[in-house]
């Protein structure tokens, strides 16, 4: 790849080309050193997944124990629960927020009242920039058992108050819907960009031919952005084992661990409890699966859209 893009260097040896770029290599020294220290030492430390790690003995000094940590994880009762919860949240968020984002993008594109369009657009992007700590504060005002807004309304209609954040049945919906509320607008941006790229003459021709607005959406808009939709779905599939640590960590509590604990939150508690090696094995399992999924989804994306992110 390197040779194919380089300027044909008639007679110039590799040494001369390297010499010519020496200033660039100097630019690279600090960033690459940074990567070795802050990104590759952790990868090296990942070996403790295969060790009986003792903090006093260090990474190298601890004894190898093969796959014992992995076996312990796969045999444990929480393995399937963690996997189920993680995938449930990833897939659930995908199923809820991607269609909502597409709908929002199309509606913003079709809306002919400029003030309405701009206001909704501005407001819908905003929550993406709020952290999950702030989101938790906002949700408390809505969902608190005693005086939250939703319970106020429920009580006004004669219902009973629910503590949404500690109720096992309500909790997954709180997670999925709060994510949709926060990210729907941000997720719509990529679809809006795709909509803007549609050739306007297609719509003009359709109007002349007497197509209704519904037909234009169904037969022009949707097919035009289909490749982007597929790309977004594939890329999200690549991170299916993430599930959203920051959100779950802020919202969950011991009473909803059974439906709120995902791989990353479990690993974090493992760290707090000093179960370094076991939690590293779980993290490494997630990392390897993630690598596999990401490579796969990238390859598929390239097939579908002709280009990929990496």
């Amino acid at each position, binding site marked *: 790849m390197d040779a194919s893009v380089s300027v044909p260097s008639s007679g110039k040896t590799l040494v001369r080309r390297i010499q010519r770029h020496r200033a660039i290599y100097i630019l690279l020294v600090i960033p690459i050193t940074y990567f070795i220290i802050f990104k590759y030492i952790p990868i090296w430390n990942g070996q403790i997944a295969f060790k009986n790690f003792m903090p006093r003995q260090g990474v190298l000094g601890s004894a190898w124990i093969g796959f014992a940590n992995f076996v312990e994880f796969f045999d444990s009762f929480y393995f399937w629960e963690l996997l189920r919860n993680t995938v449930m949240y990833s897939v659930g968020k995908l199923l809820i927020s991607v269609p909502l984002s597409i709908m929002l993008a199309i509606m913003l594109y079709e809306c002919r009242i400029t003030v309405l369009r701009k206001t909704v657009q501005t407001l819908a992007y905003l929550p993406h920039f709020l952290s999950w700590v702030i989101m938790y504060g906002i949700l408390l*005002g809505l969902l608190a058992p005693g005086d939250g807004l939703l319970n106020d309304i429920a009580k006004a209609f004669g219902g009973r108050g629910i503590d949404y954040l500690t109720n096992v049945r309500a909790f997954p919906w709180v997670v999925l819907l709060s994510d949709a509320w926060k990210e729907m607008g941000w997720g719509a941006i990529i679809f809006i960009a795709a909509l803007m790229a549609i050739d306007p003459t297609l719509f003009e021709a359709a109007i002349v031919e007497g197509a209704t607005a519904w037909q234009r959406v169904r037969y022009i808009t949707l097919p035009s952005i289909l490749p982007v939709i597929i790309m977004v779905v594939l890329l999200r599939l690549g991170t299916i084992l993430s599930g959203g640590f920051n959100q779950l960590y802020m919202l969950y509590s011991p009473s909803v661990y059974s439906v709120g604990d995902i791989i990353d939150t479990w690993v974090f508690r493992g760290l707090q409890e000093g179960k370094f090696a076991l939690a590293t094995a779980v993290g490494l399992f997630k990392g390897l699966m993630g690598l596999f999924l990401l490579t796969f989804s990238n390859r598929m994306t390239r097939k579908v859209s002709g280009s990929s992110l990496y």
Partner: protein
Amino acid sequence: MAKSHMKSPVVGISATDKVFYLLVNTVLVFLFIVIAIPLWSTITLSFRPNHFIGTNFEGMFLAPWNWSGAAYKALLGNNGFIMAFFNSIKIMVYGVASALFLTVPLAYALSIRTLPGRVFFIVIILIPHMFDVGMIPSFLMVKDLGLIDKLAAVYLPTAVSTYNCLIMKGFFEGIPDELKESARIDGASEFTLLLRIILPLSKPIVMSVGLFYAVSFWNDFFHPMLYLNSNNLMPLPILLRNILMASGMNEFVEVSAFGEAPIQAIKAASVFLAAIPMVIAYPFIQRYFAKGTLLGSVKG
């Protein structure tokens, strides 16, 4: 931004189209309300006076002249809160500075197609991005470097985002080669070229990547939670979490003797204060992503 394609003069709209546009507008208004209510209820809650009797729903319609700033007065008069605010600013400023200091040269070097070993360097930065070993190996690294309980532990491990770096690389690649060549012929060194030609041309991308870094540093609560123990290093997200988790009067509230405002108002006001820098920065951020700067430049 989303320009309507219906610019051509259409004489009369059919009945089905009228229904369509009515539906679009109605749903958009509905969405506006759904997004606005939680934000509005938080804002009104933060101004709730102590003597207010009524539900939160009623509180949303309380007239502004009956609002009380007691919660804000209490928070802004509290040393712990002010200190946390400045710790967050410190983390954000140091973080953005080191992030750009690392990302700009890296992205520029990787954007030079004739660089021998370019693919090797790209692979070096992609591997850690694709293969995430998890939080514990990073924790051990930070511990071994002696960074525990130092602000650097919060902003250094996340200083370079591979995604931002690739976006910037894509932008640099779009700068015409003729420009660089003519500068080189005029005798400019690579450093001069980067500082005098490339960076001024890349202001929009450097600004937007910088803003995105700033947002992520400001919002980060995970790394401070993991690495900082001292109270005087505590940034705003951690303090905010402590305030929110407290059901009733916690030590933070007691020490400061916040008699003037209800605890819910204190919570909501601290949420609002923590969000303010984002709300202020938001129009600037929006200007960049609305233009499609980021999306357009990913594809190299």
